[in-house]
């Protein structure tokens, strides 16, 4: 690590803006880079952004295919990043369909989105979906960064009630699944996310804390091991989850010791959750960009709102609840309001992409090296159909994706085929994920 710039040098180099230039002379780049496929020096990142309750598809799907298409009303805010954008039409999440399970399209829409697995219909016992694409990547390349992955969102888990026709609230509030039975909760408090990204406190404090934590983790692991022979069935599973979490933290501590400190951001630690919803989303966008920029993680999921969210958006003049509106019954006023909400979400997404586009990295920008999927597991919120899903793929994957197009796929092409293709580009290929039938064509 002889070429490492000292932390002080990096900090001095920070300007007034948050945009932190990726300095190739920095040691960390060399240290991480040899893990990316093709010997490319800058790492690739993948992110998945989820929005609920479907879209007003008439204002979403461009009429022309190929490169010469007009951005419809909902997608219009993306015009600044158009050259990085692919609109993918026709993808299907078959496992979000009932397939004999009756109602529950919101739970299934989110539960199947990144997994391609049929969520088990249960109100609390034996929750089960499948492993999600982000966690597949994180499990392979996560050890190269301080955090294996970052899961964030605006809404916490649902607080009370049956969430969707007999499905546990877990399904409609969780998009990442580490295994078929282990949902990964998301953080929604910017202060805590910041703490997770950047360690706080002095160096000696930190050394003592790490040393103490290692002792504590050793001790509690033994506690768990002593319990295990006496437990059975579901209790064993609980304890396994506990042990996995311990192992995860131990690995992170070991990685942190091995990897250099991430540069300090020129950003004050957020105090908590902002009161304004738009401000909240933007702050989370900033944190995700920061996490990628400082290479603290390369895999992230971001849920703008839980599936079935009934939040009103009074600051854009939509006073009814989102979910209520999405059951529009073909009322055109309601459909327009849905489109307004959809456009609002895309505007926030565009903000995030704009920031990524302005960060220089290697020969290009951060956005060049990203692959960011944006979409919903429901197509039309009234019909609750799961084919013809609204999906965007933004970013060039370090030159492996041809962008600036509207691509149409054959009916019922699995969404999971897209995930397979993305996993390839992260160097974490799998042959099958959920209901995938192969790679998604027409991307390169």
């Amino acid at each position, binding site marked *: 690590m002889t070429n490492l710039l000292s932390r002080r040098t990096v900090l001095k180099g920070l300007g007034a803006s948050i945009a932190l230039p990726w300095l190739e002379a920095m040691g960390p780049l060399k240290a991480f880079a040899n893990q990316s496929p093709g010997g490319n020096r800058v790492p690739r990142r993948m992110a998945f952004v989820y929005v609920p309750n479907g879209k007003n598809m008439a204002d979403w799907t461009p009429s022309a295919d190929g490169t010469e298409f007009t951005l419809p009303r909902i997608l219009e805010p993306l015009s600044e990043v158009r050259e990085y954008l692919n609109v993918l039409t026709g993808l299907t999440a078959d496992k979000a369909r009932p397939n004999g399970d009756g109602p529950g399209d919101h739970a299934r829409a989110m539960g199947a989105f990144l997994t391609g697995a049929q969520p088990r219909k249960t*109100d*609390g016992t034996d929750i089960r979906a499948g492993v999600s694409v982000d966690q597949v990547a994180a499990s392979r390349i996560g050890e190269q960064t301080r955090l294996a992955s970052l899961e964030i969102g605006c809404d916490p888990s*649902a607080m009370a009630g049956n969430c969707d026709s007999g499905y*546990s609230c877990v399904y409609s509030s969780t998009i990442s699944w580490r295994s078929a039975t282990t949902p990964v909760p998301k953080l929604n408090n910017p202060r805590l996310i910041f703490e997770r990204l950047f360690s706080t406190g002095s160096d000696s404090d930190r050394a003592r804390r790490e040393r103490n934590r290692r002792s504590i983790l050793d001790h509690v692991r033994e506690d768990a091991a002593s319990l295990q022979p006496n437990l059975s069935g579901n209790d064993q599973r*609980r304890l396994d989850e506990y042990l996995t*979490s311990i192992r995860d933290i131990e690995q992170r501590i070991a990685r942190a010791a091995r990897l250099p400190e991430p540069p300090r951001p020129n950003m004050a630690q957020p105090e908590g959750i902002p009161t304004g919803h738009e401000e909240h989303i933007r702050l989370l966008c900033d944190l995700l960009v920061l996490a990628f920029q400082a290479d603290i993680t390369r895999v992230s999921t971001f849920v703008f709102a839980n599936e079935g969210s009934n939040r009103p958006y009074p600051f854009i003049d939509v006073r*009814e609840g989102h979910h209520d509106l999405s059951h529009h019954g073909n009322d055109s006023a309601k459909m327009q309001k849905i489109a307004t909400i959809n456009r609002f979400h895309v505007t926030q997404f565009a903000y995030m992409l704009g920031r990524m586009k302005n960060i220089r990295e290697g020969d290009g920008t951060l956005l060049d090296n990203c692959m960011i999927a944006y979409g919903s597991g429901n197509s039309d919120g009234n019909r609750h159909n799961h084919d013809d899903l609204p999906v965007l793929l933004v970013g060039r994957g370090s030159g492996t994706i041809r962008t600036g197009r509207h691509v149409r796929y054959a009916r019922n092409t699995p969404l999971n085929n897209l995930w397979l293709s993305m996993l390839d580009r992260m160097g974490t290929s799998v042959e099958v994920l959920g209901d995938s039938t192969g790679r998604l064509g027409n991307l390169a």
Partner: protein
Amino acid sequence: MRYVAAVSVFILALAGYVINRTAGQAPAAESNDAVEKIIVPYVNKHCVQCHGPKKKNASLALHIYTDEKAILKDRKRWIEVIRMLSAGEMPPEKQPRPDVNDTDKFLKTIHAIFTEADAKGPRDPGRVTMRRLNRAEYNNTIRDLIGVDFKPAEDFPADDVGHGFDNIGDVLTVSPVLMERYLAAAETITQQAIIGGELPKPSTRTVSARFTEPSVPNPDKVGKFRPITKTKSPLNTLYNLTQDGQFKARIRGYGQQLGAEPVKIALTIDGKEVKVFDVPTNDPMNPQALEIRLELKKGAHRMAAVLLNEFKDPDGPAERTFFLEMLQLEGPLDTRPASHKKIMAHQDGLSTRDAVPEILERFATKAYRRPATKAEIDRLANLVHHAEKNGEKTEAGIQLAMQAILCSPKFLFRVELDHRPDSKDAHPIDEYQLASRLSYFLWSTMPDDELFGLAEKKQLHANLEAQVKRMLADPKSYALVENFAAQWLQLRLLKSHAPDSTLFPDFDDGLRNAMIRETELFFQAIIKEDRSVLDLLDSNFTFMNGRLAAHYGIADTNGNRVGQKEIVKAGTPFVQGRTGKFGGKFGGKGGGRSSSEFVRVTFADDERGGILTHASILTLTSNPTRTNPVKRGKWVLEQILGTPPPPPPPNVPELEEKGELKGTLRERFEQHRKNPSCANCHAKLDPMGFAFENFNAIGKFRTKEGDAPIDVSGILPGGQKFNGPKELRKILLDKKDVFARALTEKMLTYAIGRGLEYYDKKHVDHIEAALAKNEYRFSRLVVEITQSDPFRMRRGKDQKND
């Protein structure tokens, strides 16, 4: 057509279910006979084409069930069969429909088989998955374990919800994010609980002589020293102490000797002499601090410096004098926080180091909620020694051990190991486990000393009822309001509910919180006064503050209405909310209640009564912009009657455009319900919701919607007619056994931390019957739940684990 059949069957099944329970017994079935005569022919006629020897759709082959034993063996599948059939999902749409009466008989027969099996079978208390402490439980447990109430779990990710509650074992998972938060919380907690490094210095309060009493008109003009020459003129000051403790009291000054004796000065506290000093010096450059160590109790104390031996020079003006510079009080000398002293307490005469095992045993036993073993204590002691080897104080080592305890699965989970693992049959859980189940059920926290004591003496099972009653009377039972009631009634949803601010400018956090508080206090009254749970359905009292009273149009605590003639003698008037519109007799000139204080209100009319007319419930079952009768009807069916409506069919058909929908909400819904695919489900949902249309989307009373008068009449399936919420409440009271059962099921789920299964049915039956026999009193429900098998017992070795 399919849904007509579905709903008819559902209603019949519901009716049958109700009838069966009201009658109290199931019709006895000649079991195998019934299988032969009713089950097999039905299955052969309607099911085996797809679920038989040739085709096994969904891996279900029904032809193999030829006797009762086979059906009971696969009970879970047959429960699915019943569900599908009752909901009309089977046979599938395109297949011919069985005759409704045949299906009804089929279902009744199966029910009878199950009921008889339950009555005769072995005890099955079920299994609950090891329960992780949820956020509320973690906060409360830390508060009671350590004595520090600072809610560390606010930073934890939200708990996942199952069966309507956030304390369900199968749903509460552990993730790396949560584990990190546990580690961080444990650090913070132990640092607050005991001081691992240097103890802070005690505080010292110094009063310069110029500011002592008797006070001087210009203290700044007085020099550094004030003379005391007369015994009856001491100088003193008042100290206000916030805690008991050991202190050091000091007088600083110097003497001017005269005559043979040295200057004698006494330090007095509250007039009593504590110590007498011979003042040794006469040097103003070297004032002496005369000090005494003493015990003082919390409160105000007057400290004085008194000259004991005044003396005047017989030949001149000189006098023996004490020149006072300052009075000082230092302390409490022990700056260890109360939590520190409690945790570190040990046998007299032992050094802290030697006391480590004692300290750890006490803390680990409390934290693990059962006696710590020697092996556990030894391992924890190693952590302490490890820290000491790294140059830390013993206290810092104890902190480390405490962190390990607080992150251990033995603390974070309610582990319930079988203390009789070889027992074949169901047997009681061990005493300590029972103590935890009780305390987390009723208090959402760890057991207290009394429960631990009884568990240690193996007398808790034997004293269950008395303990339950004690626990209900304890203020900690408010946890049932905050955690059980708030989730059962879905009050937590109200916190994030956002009524449209242009349509409801009145609604703000003050009103929101007042609504929530009303329902909380009401439920609390049911607990405290051991009222009948039926009061939840209809009652003649509630709680309001000024804000809520204005919202309800109530003028005083006897229920008279604002702006109307008195119906009953006036009670204490409310000071009306923010706008102060209501002046005069009921206005704010004093003698009324302050706006924010909650008081009990007795209704003078029956416009409102019970939780169904609480603004909280009426608001959370509405949309942001308007009422939602379907949501309200669904809420009543689900939360109050425990009979959730069938879910909407997978493809809700498009509604044809028939031009503008006109009229009141109800009139427009009527037009929708004329569509037969929708009508039959909504016949169950809508009437209940429409009965409450007099209450708008934030629970305020109205008689008109826009210009149109509101029609609040309805017909329930089964033909009962009602007009308005008052009559609907009476009808619900008639269904009291259905309500009691729903409440029992919900509370039992909350108490045992798992969803209910078929083998719980007979226990629910028993609890419901006991409740009815005891005037539906709340304490009875709780006692019966704690005495039931699912709460008190665990499965034996041979019992199936499904």
